[in-house]
């Protein structure tokens, strides 16, 4: 490692972005073949934080796996545990009281807003603007406080139970949520004024980082990435689960395929989540939060079960193959960020590194969820 560096014209060099790099938001490594500032070829290297959640799902009982699910995506954990309880309820045929389903929908949507808020801050920080992160975190704090009061934790929730919930929400939670909705709407307007309308911001995102609908289909991308490419797919609308068919909400779709489109989808989704929470609080029925009859030991009958949900990052699916025992025979997780990340290698070819990393930010990566 000594001696002068010889750089020949036309020569490319390898740049290791990560595993420790500020733009990758975790232990992701991208090996980039660079020609000056241009990316010739990129190769994503995964596995730095692999924890074998799928195997753990196969040698533990169903309730024991439940806390694992919130360790996948620590920013939108409720959506993932929601998928697991829905899958097991479907497999074991457990009835869920309506009140529990409404509370699940409300808390999941709150968690989605918290996740999008954090993404918003981190994304603008990727572009060099530090201040919006602080504003976003302040708003997210309200949600975390609310959820902490009912679930007992701030990030890695284990709130849902097979058949219902761990505990009921109280008046404090409802008041806080009702106060939060108008506040968040005001804040979203403020974000629009501070960030969305900014000319530098627009120039960095508009027509930059194209991800076409074909590419999304090829790699199985979902969520805001696909909706930013004009694919109108949201599991909550297309395959309604829980009580989502009762709510009136729109699925924001943008056809520009650029980083700005993905940004706009997420900003609009926050507004739609607020609408869902508003309706959920209005319609919230009284009643129990756990079913009267519930099996002591969960042993789903032999079979193959699949349940998909729309998490903050895209459609997340759990496949449970049961052989009739208390452990799953096969426990497969289909995580959205893994698919969204896969298209990065192809999409970033020929881009400049700063645009490529802005595009990576717009994919909303949470690394523990890719590696599982």
């Amino acid at each position, binding site marked *: *490692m*000594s*001696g*002068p*560096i010889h750089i020949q014209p036309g020569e490319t*060099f390898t*740049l290791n972005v990560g595993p420790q*790099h*500020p*733009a990758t938001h975790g232990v992701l490594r991208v090996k980039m073949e*660079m020609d*000056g*500032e241009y990316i010739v070829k990129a190769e994503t290297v995964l596995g730095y934080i692999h924890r074998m959640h799928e195997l753990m799902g196969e040698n533990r009982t169903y309730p024991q796996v439940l806390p694992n699910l919130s360790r996948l995506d620590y920013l939108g954990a409720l959506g993932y545990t929601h998928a697991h309880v829905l899958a097991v309820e479907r497999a074991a045929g457990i009835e869920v009281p309506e009140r529990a389903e409404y509370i699940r929908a409300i808390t999941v949507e709150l968690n989605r807003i918290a996740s999008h808020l954090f993404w918003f801050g981190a994304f*603008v*920080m*990727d*572009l*060099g*603007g*530090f*201040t919006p992160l*602080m*504003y976003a975190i*302040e708003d997210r704090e309200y949600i975390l406080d609310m959820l902490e009061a009912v679930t007992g934790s701030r990030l890695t929730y284990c709130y849902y139970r097979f058949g219902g919930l761990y505990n009921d929400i109280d008046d404090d939670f409802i008041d806080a949520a009702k106060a939060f909705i108008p506040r968040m709407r005001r804040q979203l307007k403020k974000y629009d004024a*501070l*960030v969305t309308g*900014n000319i*530098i*911001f627009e*120039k*960095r995102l508009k027509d930059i980082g194209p991800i076409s609908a074909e590419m999304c289909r090829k790699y199985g991308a979902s969520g805001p990435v696909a909706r930013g490419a004009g694919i109108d797919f949201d599991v909550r609308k297309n395959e309604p689960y829980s009580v989502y068919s009762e709510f009136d909400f729109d699925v924001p779709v943008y056809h520009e395929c650029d980083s700005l489109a993905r940004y706009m989808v997420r900003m609009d989704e926050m507004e739609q989540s607020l609408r869902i929470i508003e309706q959920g609080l209005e319609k919230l029925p009284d009643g129990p939060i756990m079913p009267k009859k519930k099996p002591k030991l969960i042993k789903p009958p032999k079979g193959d079960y699949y349940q998909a949900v729309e998490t903050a990052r895209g459609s997340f699916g759990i496949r449970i193959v049961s052989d009739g025992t208390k452990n799953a025979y096969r426990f497969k997780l289909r995580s959205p960020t893994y698919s969204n990340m896969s298209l990065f290698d192809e999409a970033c070819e020929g881009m*400049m*590194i*700063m*645009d490529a*990393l802005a595009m990576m*930010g717009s994919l909303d990566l949470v690394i523990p969820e890719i590696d599982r």
Partner: protein
Amino acid sequence: MSLTILNAVIAVVAAIAFAAVNAAYLVWAERRGAGRIQRRPGPNVNGPLGLLQPPCDGIKLMAKQIMIPGGADKALFMVAPALAMAPAIMSFVTIPFSDTIVAHSMNVGVLMIFAFASLGAMSILLAGWGSRNKYAVMASVRAVSQNISYEIPMLITVITIVMMTGTMDLKELVAGQAGGMWNWNAVPSLASPLMPVSFLIFFICSLAETNRAPFDLGEAESELVAGFHTEYGSMGFGLFFMGEYANIVIGASLITILFLGGWGCPLGLFPGVWWFLLKIYILIFSFIWIRWTFPRTTIYGLLNLSWKILIPISLFNLLLTAGLLKVF
């Protein structure tokens, strides 16, 4: 004879002290300002209002071990931080704070400041090259191309002013603007109606020259880790940091002297050093404000702005002023 030497030494030491104190306390001001803007307290533990934070930081940085990465060019690696700070301090020598307070008045003051300012790009280049880090090399290439392309419109604007006033002495430049804000160079005059545009160009260029957000491409932390000073720790990093703030003070002082009437009062009353300080700190606050509000531009957007917009406009202004000076 010995008395004049003593006087000169005292003046130079005072200028250096002003630069160093400003560099240290602007870090504090920046962090407090950022805290205000981001609705958080900022440094507030050490001393009242966190005022002892800069000395604490300095002691911490100086107590740290100097790490030289393997394969680095040791000489260049060590020289670069010194080169970042020294020209910045040297520029203070010729800046007049008021009619009487100036370390050493020169009739080519403007030229000297720009000569030293362009040395700053050298330190970035050496730091990036010497530390043998791909991120650092990429960042220094960016920073140098940025510095070069922004020096051009900056100098063209200065030439316009020198043409109008006919002097390169900073003191005479200020004296020419005495008597109230209507005499300032930033205000359009018959000979140069486009002066506010020049002022804006100069302001943008000083932001870019000091590598400040939104033009901080040399240290774009989300892409290039920490840019050209990725491999620097301890006081090497500290010197780069202080050099940046010293450059900010110089940028603000230059704007004040060239465009905003130096130590003159906006209404022509009580000219003095206080007006000068007030003006530069208002400008510095606006630098801080801009940094914490805007995201970063792209490198090509930055170069396009300079070559396609700022340089043509400043050239046009130069020609227009030259023509109008002949007429009037």
